[in-house]
Each structure stands twice: as structure tokens, then as C-alpha cells.
């Protein structure tokens, strides 16, 4: 019987010796999953994908390039109407809003980065490895958000500063020209970074919630770009009341230099947009926790 002849006898009473394993016993006691370690793991996962570097670079380049170009091509006669649509160019131009022309585009890139970080785990099957290592699951979501949010915030704040500084010579002598030290300029630029940091987390939440890169990217574009347009179909009175609370409108209030009458204050805008992100995160956490992976 060749089938069984090759087998060696089982020895069930043999003591369990793990020292025979490649790693000595010393390491056995020390392994433990902790929040910091999951964060460390997500940090490593984030930087070890080529797509991360590409998408981050695209986001920052879009931010800097569009801002600088908008500043250089500005002429007071053709008021902002030649600028690309989006939250950055809300009618009357100022040096900051020109410098932040690229925020809309950067928000898509950075949101997609968040989606890829999260939904990419589902499309590749990596999620099974991730959840096998961290079966409590939720630390994976928090850690992804905690990794990408600050990274996006720091890099895009620097990008916004660069866009402003690069654009300043282009506005030299114009009426709207501003210096970095002028009132509210730094706050606006940092606000753009804050907004984009939150958009990155929003992308992560959508990715975990929808578990599909395509679906989550569509939702991201829908919420940030299409929803405000669709909402203009609402009756005027409704629209005026509701529109400041839409995610993208609340978000653009965070980095607007001048508070416009039909928008929220920066603080309120931040609170509302962060609220949207938090709601999505809660939905993502619920689905991650409750449904089979």
C-alpha cells in the first residue's frame, strides 16, 4: 500500500516542543497585537505601494501647478471666469483663492489615494491577511485613517504654501496681491491642507464601506463634485438653506479667505465636513465589524 507506506507513525504523546521551530522560545512570549503596532503596520503598508507615491505626487503637483498657473494668468478684466470650476473660484478672486485653484483636483487625487488604501485591500484579497493578523478589525480602519490623514494634511499644506509663494510674483502689482503675513492667508492655506487631510480619510471610509475601488471612487466624485450641481435642481429656498452643509461646500468654507454670505464660517465648515467624514467612518466601521470579510 504505497499510500500509507510513506507515512511515518504518529506520535500523539510526544511533548509539544516549540524550540524545534526556527525561532527560539524567547520570541514566543513577546508577540502581541497593539494599537501602535497596527498603526506601524499600516504606515508600512502605505509607503510600500508604488501607487501611493504616484497618487501623492499627482495630488501635490496638481495643487501647486494649478495654483501657480492661475496666479500667473490672472487678469482683473476677465474675472475668474476662465478659471476651472470648483470651490476655489467662488466669484470674486483673491490671491489665496487663486493659489488654491488646484484644491478640487488635488482633493480627487487624495481621495482616490484613500480609496485605494482601503478598497484596494478588498480587490486584491489583502484584507484577509490584514484581518487574520488583526481580527478585532476596527484598529485597521482607525490606523489607515490615522496614517493617511496627517500625511495628506502635511504634504498638501506644504503644497498650498508652495502654490501661494510661487504665485505671488505673478500677481505683483495687482490689486488683489497678498503676502503670506497678511490676515488670514496662513489660516486659509492650512485650511486647505486640513480639508484635504479629511478628504483622504473620507476616501478610506468610503473604500471600507463600499469594498470596491470603482464604487468608492464613483461615490467620492459624486459627493465632492456632482452633488452640489445636482442640488441646484432643488427649489431655491431649500438650496439656499441646505447647500452650505453639503460636504464640498462646507469643505471649501474651511479654506476660504473671506467668509461669503452664503457659506459657513471656516470653523463651522470644518465641523460640518468633519461630521460628514465621521458619519462615513462610522458606517465603514459598522460594515467592517459586522459583515464577513
Amino acid at each position, binding site marked *: 500500500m504505497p499510500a500509507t507506506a510513506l507515512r511515518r507513525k*504518529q506520535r500523539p504523546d510526544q511533548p509539544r516542543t516549540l524550540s524545534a521551530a526556527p525561532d527560539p522560545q524567547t520570541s514566543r512570549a513577546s508577540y502581541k497585537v497593539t494599537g501602535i503596532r497596527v498603526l506601524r503596520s499600516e504606515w508600512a503598508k502605505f509607503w510600500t505601494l508604488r501607487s501611493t507615491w504616484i497618487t501623492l505626487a499627482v495630488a501635490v503637483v496638481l495643487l501647486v501647478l494649478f495654483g501657480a498657473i492661475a496666479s500667473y494668468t490672472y487678469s482683473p478684466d476677465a474675472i475668474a471666469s476662465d478659471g476651472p470650476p470648483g470651490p476655489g473660484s467662488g466669484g470674486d478672486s483673491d490671491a489665496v483663492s487663486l493659489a488654491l485653484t488646484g484644491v478640487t483636483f488635488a482633493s480627487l487625487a487624495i481621495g482616490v489615494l484613500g480609496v485605494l488604501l482601503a478598497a484596494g485591500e478588498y480587490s486584491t484579497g489583502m484584507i484577509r491577511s490584514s484581518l487574520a*493578523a488583526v481580527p478585532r478589525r476596527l484598529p485597521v480602519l482607525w490606523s489607515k485613517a490615522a496614517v493617511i490623514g496627517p500625511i495628506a494634511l502635511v504634504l498638501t499644506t506644504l503644497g498650498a504654501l508652495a502654490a501661494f509663494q510661487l504665485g505671488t510674483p505673478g500677481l505683483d502689482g495687482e490689486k488683489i496681491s497678498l503676502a503670506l503675513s497678511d490676515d488670514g492667508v496662513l489660516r486659509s492655506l492650512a485650511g486647505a491642507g486640513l480639508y484635504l487631510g479629511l478628504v483622504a480619510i473620507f476616501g478610506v471610509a468610503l473604500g471600507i464601506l463600499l469594498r470596491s475601488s470603482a464604487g468608492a471612487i464613483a461615490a467620492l466624485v459624486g459627493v465632492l463634485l456632482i452633488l452640489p450641481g445636482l442640488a441646484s435642481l432643488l427649489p431655491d429656498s431649500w438650496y439656499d438653506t441646505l447647500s452650505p452643509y453639503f460636504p464640498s461646500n462646507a469643505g471649501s468654507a474651511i479654506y476660504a479667505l473671506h467668509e461669503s454670505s452664503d457659506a459657513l464660517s471656516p470653523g463651522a465648515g470644518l465641523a460640518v465636513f468633519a461630521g460628514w467624514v465621521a458619519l462615513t467612518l462610522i458606517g465603514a466601521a459598522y460594515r467592517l465589524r459586522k459583515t464577513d470579510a
Partner: protein
Amino acid sequence: MIEARELTKRYGDKTVVDHLSFTVKPGEVTGFLGPNGAGKSTTMRMIIGLDSPTAGSVTVNGRSYSRHSAPLQEIGTLLEAKSVHPGRSAVNHLMALAHTHGIPRSRVEEVIELAGLTSVATKRVGAFSLGMGQRLGIASALLGDPGIIMLDEPVNGLDPEGVLWVRNLLRRLAEEGRAVMLSSHLMSETALIADHLVIIGRGRLLADTTVEDFTQEAGGGGVKVASTEAVRLRSLLAGPDVTITSSSEEELLVTGRDTRQIGAIAAQHGVALYELTPQSVSLEAAFMDLTRDAVEYQSAPADTERKAA
């Protein structure tokens, strides 16, 4: 030790795993067998908490998987489906998992070497062949130096050398006292390595037995003996628990005595043998017989095909 108790998983009105109870013990290799669609992968996913059972429970070393503080140290798993981001290198993939547990880089390097992946460790996993992917999966299963190793179809896509490597590796792990569970839909492959068999079909337990018992119950192979003095040999070999049948004038089929005994008896009495062949039971046939009614996707002329196999 893995203990499943009345484990049940339903998707809608389809029951994939049906009141399944079994135990995977340390120090032995447990083969988890069943035809495609029998519920093997779903069961394994429930063991490590990827799917939650509809009813019943399964514990790993006495607790549900998610309650362990270092789950990768309790049980290492290779799932059938790919569970790796193709854009990451093997070493980065393993490091990402290692970070969650505080497993040092030296251990990552060890398992890479153990799996024979040293030369491709920094390559993107997307470029890996099926066999290399399996080796990476086994490397990640061993990462936490776990007491239990659970592998879903581990030899899929491996070349013969790789199959032998897996076989020896699993045997060694069991000899170190670890519990090894491997799933397969191939009886012959599993019988080479397993001590214990858990056979399921349509999510139900069909047999929980040892390979030896299964082989014996399958009908015992017997030994085919050919000699010109078949009649005389027949009386020489006779004894309690020995049955001898004969299909032709010079051939005997003996059960109850092994080749060594028969050869010795024949030599003692000067009977010349010109054939002495142990008849291997077709374990595969016995397995198919057992699972026949539980095959999920039955091909139309299944019976004739099976007998041919």
C-alpha cells in the same frame, strides 16, 4: 487545537456548512477533505473569524480566534484565495503582517529563507508564479511561529519538488508537536501526509477517522501472489483472519498476511513465486464512494467516469 462544535453557515437559504463538529489535535496532520463546494474554505474562514458562523462555534486553542492577543502566534493560515497585494514585495508583505504583532525582521527573513523565496523576496508579488505565491502564503502562515498551521489546498500550483517540500515541512511541523490541518479535494495526496481525516460533503461531516482505519474500511488491499503451485501455497498460507481468493489457476489474492510473511512462508516450503504485489486500495475510489451523494457539481455520466478513475 481547533475545536468545531455544530458549526453552521448559511447564505440565504443555502447551507454551506451544516452542524459540523471536529477536532484538530496537536502533533498530527489532519486532512480536511471534501469535493469542491463541500464547505472546506468556508469552514477555514470561520476558524479565523473572517466569516462568522450562523450557528455553533469554533475555537482555536480554547478561545474564539479574535480573542487572542497574538492570533498569528496561535494559528498560521494559508487560504486558498490569494491574500496578498500584488504591488508589494514579499518581504514588505510579510513585514506589514509582522509589524502588527511586533515580530522582528529576523523572523521575516527566516521564513523567507524557509520558503525558498530569498532570491525573489524584493520582487513584486504580482510577478510571482502560482507556486511562488503558495510558498509566500506558507511563509506568512509560519511567520508567528504558531502552534497550529492551517493550509487550504497548499500544494495547488506547486511543482513536484514543491509538493515534496510541503509534505516534509508539514510532517516536521506535526512532529514538533504542532497541530496541522490541510484541506484538499484529493484523497491520494492527503493520505500520503495526514494521520487523521475529516471528510465533509455538502457541509456535513461524512467521516472522522484515521487514514489507517479509512484504508482498512475501504476494503483492504490484499496481496496478489502468483505461483505455479498456487493450490499448495493456498493451504500453506491459510490461517485465522486470512482470506484467500483466486481469480485464475495460478493467482491468489491474500488478505491478512503481508508480502514479507507470504514470501517467507513460500521460501520455507520451497514454493517459487513469480509475483508478489501488494494491491493498493484505491483510496480515491473509496473517497469518491463516500462523497458520491454529496458532490456539489455532478457531471452527467459521473458513475462511469468514477469507476474508470
